[in-house]
């Protein structure tokens, strides 16, 4: 839908710009001036806005995140055949949308969470091209329970299960991290020794 809107706006803009350049006399009339303003100003802004939106949507896809070489092991870790691996368990059991696996867990569920995620993405690009990539990747700040509770809060399997029930307040207040107990995350260092799940349609 957005792609079509972008294409329509770009094509329309190019046609109008071409027409006005080929026949400059059109811009002498009031209507022509308005048309020129639309072609040279309004439509390019609209096209750039649509394009930026499409890029932001693309950047939420798992394929996009894994297109960077350094992310490949993290992509592989989604296929570990061990349910104790938190990302793998979520990915393989459709607890998160597979096509947006990275974004679903690594965005901030706050008002400007998407924007923050994009700013972090730009920081990744800066490090990728202009700095030295650290041998061991780490999050910029500790993983917040808020991101887990965005989905798990209210779920019966979470709320009624011990010890979640007993420590619910601590989890909500981030006094105790979910990762204290659920501490097998991507573990990319051990991927070579781990059995992999082969998705049926992979």
């Amino acid at each position: 839908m957005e792609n079509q809107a972008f294409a329509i706006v770009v094509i329309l803009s190019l046609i109008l710009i071409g027409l006005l350049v080929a026949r400059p006399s059109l811009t002498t009339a009031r209507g022509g001036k308005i048309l020129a303003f639309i072609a040279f100003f309004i439509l390019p802004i609209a096209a750039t806005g649509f394009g930026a939106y499409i890029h932001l949507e693309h950047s939420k896809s798992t394929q996009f995140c894994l297109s960077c070489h350094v992310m490949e092991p993290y992509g592989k870790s989604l296929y570990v055949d061990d349910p104790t691996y938190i990302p793998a368990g979520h990915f393989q059991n459709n607890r998160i949308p597979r096509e947006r696996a990275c974004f679903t867990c690594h965005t901030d569920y706050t008002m400007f969470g998407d924007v923050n995620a994009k700013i972090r993405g730009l920081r990744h690009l800066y490090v990728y091209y202009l700095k030295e990539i650290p041998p061991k990747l780490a999050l910029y700040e500790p993983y917040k329970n808020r991101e887990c509770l965005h989905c798990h809060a209210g779920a019966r399997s979470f709320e009624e299960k011990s010890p979640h029930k007993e420590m619910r307040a601590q989890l909500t207040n981030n006094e105790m991290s979910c990762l204290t107990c659920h501490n097998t995350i991507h573990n990319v260092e051990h991927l070579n020794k781990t059995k992999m799940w082969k998705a049926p349609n992979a």
Partner: protein
Amino acid sequence: MNETTPRLHRKFKIAACLLGLGLLAEAATLHWSHPTSFLFFIGVGGFLVIVGMALYLLAIVSE
């Protein structure tokens, strides 16, 4: 101003070229799913579009 002056027309042509190239560059980046594509979108496409629009606005204001 009843007729477009050659100077204004020349500015329109330059603005049109910049805008056309910028929009095509933006369109090209959408077919490339890689973080660098966003940089090209902003750095090349966005830059050309902004310069083209600025040139057009300057042209109509100065004439």
